[in-house]
């Protein structure tokens, strides 16, 4: 066990709540798990030095922090500062409840193989349980804010259940003010015919360490539309699991990462087609500049019984410098015979015809190249279903992109 981990879990004793049994189980698992090294497949390209070196601490007192404004949206805010829940929405719409109590779902959707997920099981003190009642469709967007003050360590956990026919929009938003360390995990049960629109914004660049995951279980005819947008940092790792537990469910996952400097961003997306007739579409696009490193692992596991599965995984990457690195690995494991499954991972090149077309309108070659590179990720921003979120994040990404140098 690493020194960091030993230190961190010592803190677990102070947590007293209804999740004690599950925490004890996770702690036992964690104690038995080998600390990842370069030989650990899931961490091959992502060294944990930044975790071990982190001096972020559990703070007794935290400053007041408020999340960023998004024009045109009035969120239902669930705000954590340094791992403590500091605010809940005051007036909840009918059919939406948020409670801090036991939940049978806690630790049942997130697979136990995620080592920092286990850390989070043990250390997330204020587990929030969100429920949308049957057939209730919530218009407002629920935003889960994970805010960290300089020097702080924080661990947050939210469990969300959409009952049959329900609909909800959830934004996971992380903001780090300085050198911080966090684990942030969410578990979603999307009931029969329910619809979840999900966003995970991991735009905290700089010297912080962020480990987390969004894990989804879909029952029959459930639908998921998820967008993950990340910048790199000292270490940024997101694991996502999409698990089909009922037929005719559909999930779409779009992810964008944009890295500069010496940043690291690692996305592991795992899809379990355990039942027939489900559909997955994944579009993953990244741009890496300078000496940054992106890691993408996209696993699609089509179980023996999962006939008539449609699964598509597309990963395209653009390298802006020859010192930047992208490690991409699609992993298809197909045990059913009647499925359609396509995948592709490419280092993208600028479309020459498009470049010429722009130049014939008077746009300089270099500006045309920038427009097309940005367009490459902007295409996925265009697909975000809530326009206010797209309009909010677009200029943030554009600015970051504009600062990146082509070398």
């Amino acid at each position, binding site marked *: 066990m690493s020194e960091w981990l030993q230190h961190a879990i010592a803190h677990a004793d102070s947590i007293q709540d209804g999740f004690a049994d599950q925490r004890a189980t996770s702690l036992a698992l964690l104690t038995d798990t080998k600390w990842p090294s370069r030989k650990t497949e899931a961490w091959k390209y992502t060294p944990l030095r930044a975790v071990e070196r982190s001096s972020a601490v559990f703070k007794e007192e935290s400053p007041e922090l408020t999340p960023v404004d998004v024009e045109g949206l009035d969120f239902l805010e669930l705000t954590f500062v340094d791992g403590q829940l500091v605010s809940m929405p005051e007036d909840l719409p009918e059919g939406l409840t948020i409670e801090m109590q036991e939940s049978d779902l806690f630790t049942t959707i997130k697979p136990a193989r995620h080592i920092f997920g286990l850390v989070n099981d043990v250390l997330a003190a204020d587990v929030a349980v969100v429920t949308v009642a049957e057939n209730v469709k919530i218009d407002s967007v629920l935003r889960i804010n994970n805010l960290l003050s300089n020097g702080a360590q924080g661990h947050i956990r939210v469990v969300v259940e959409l009952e049959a026919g329900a609909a909800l929009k959830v934004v996971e938003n992380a903001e780090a003010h300085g050198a911080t360390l966090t684990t942030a995990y969410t578990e979603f049960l999307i009931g029969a015919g329910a619809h979840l629109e999900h966003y995970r914004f991991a735009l905290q660049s700089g010297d912080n360490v962020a480990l987390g995951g969004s894990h989804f279980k879909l029952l029959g005819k459930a639908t998921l539309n998820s967008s993950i947008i990340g910048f790199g940092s000292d270490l940024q790792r997101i694991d996502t699991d999409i698990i089909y537990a009922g037929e005719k469910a559909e999930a779409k996952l779009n992810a964008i990462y944009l890295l500069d400097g010496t940043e690291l961003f690692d996305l592991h997306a795992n899809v379990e087609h355990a039942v027939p007739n489900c559909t997955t579409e994944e579009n993953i696009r990244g741009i890496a500049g300078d000496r940054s490193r992106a890691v993408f692992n996209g696993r699609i596991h089509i179980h023996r019984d999962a006939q008539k599965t449609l699964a598509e995984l597309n990963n395209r990457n653009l390298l802006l410098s020859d010192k930047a690195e992208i490690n991409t690995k699609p992993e298809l494991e197909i045990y059913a015979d009647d499925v359609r499954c396509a995948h592709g991972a490419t280092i993208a090149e600028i479309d*020459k015809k498009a470049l010429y077309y722009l*130049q014939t*309108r008077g*746009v300089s070659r270099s*500006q045309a190249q920038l427009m097309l590179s940005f367009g490459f990720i902007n295409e996925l921003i265009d697909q975000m279903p809530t326009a206010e979120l797209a309009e909010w994040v677009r200029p943030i990404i554009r600015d970051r992109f504009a600062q990146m140098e082509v070398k």
Partner: protein
Amino acid sequence: MSNENVLLSIKDLHASVEEKNILKGLNLDIKPGEVHAIMGPNGAGKSTTGYVLSGRDGYEVDSGSATLDGQDLFDMDVEERARAGLFLAFQYPVEIPGVSNLEFLKVSVDSQREARGEEALTSAEFLKLAKEACKQVNLPVSFLKRGVNEGFSGGEKKRNEIMQMILLKPKLCILDETDSGLDIDAMQVVANGVNSQRDSERSFIVVTHYQRLLDYIKPDFVHVLADGKIVKSGDASLAKELEAQGYAWLQTEPTEDEIED
């Protein structure tokens, strides 16, 4: 400048694509304000002419010259030619998802204004112009928000080309089969767009297979391009003749590899 009163001057132009000679001694002079129609069989080199003049990669000039307003076109980058006033409306406009049409148009106009030493337009000023141009070519304003040509129908793409021409105000417009695949209404929209831009300064090369477009856009000259050079020139009545007779009278013996094409 060799000839004071010539906007575009192409002299004995030979050009090739992938080692294959396509243009084989093309000559053409266009004066300000003139409209020249170019007709001719498929594969004659009509599109190639537009690509060579605009500077597309892979289109090699083997010999000959082309000047726009006395400036050597082949000495300029693609974008410089555009800024010098050359505009090509593509036979097959390119789709660019992720780049909005509005941004594309604004950056294009800004680049050209900047090159002329003019100030950039504010977003509001430009939006107003763009909306007017949309109306003029009968495209819903919502098309400004979409990706460049993304998911546009054939006719919408062609109208988008004309909209760009209206906004960029070039000196020489080459319209490459802008009427192909358009129904009569759409063709009229295109023709009206072109006619609205005609004046004593601006010149046009209209590449088309159909006489009907030339009923709306009256050409000063009609040329027949065949096997890489102009084989016949005349006034508007030549287009009518061609429509009636086709190109059989050309009587060029096809070479082996042209038969393969």
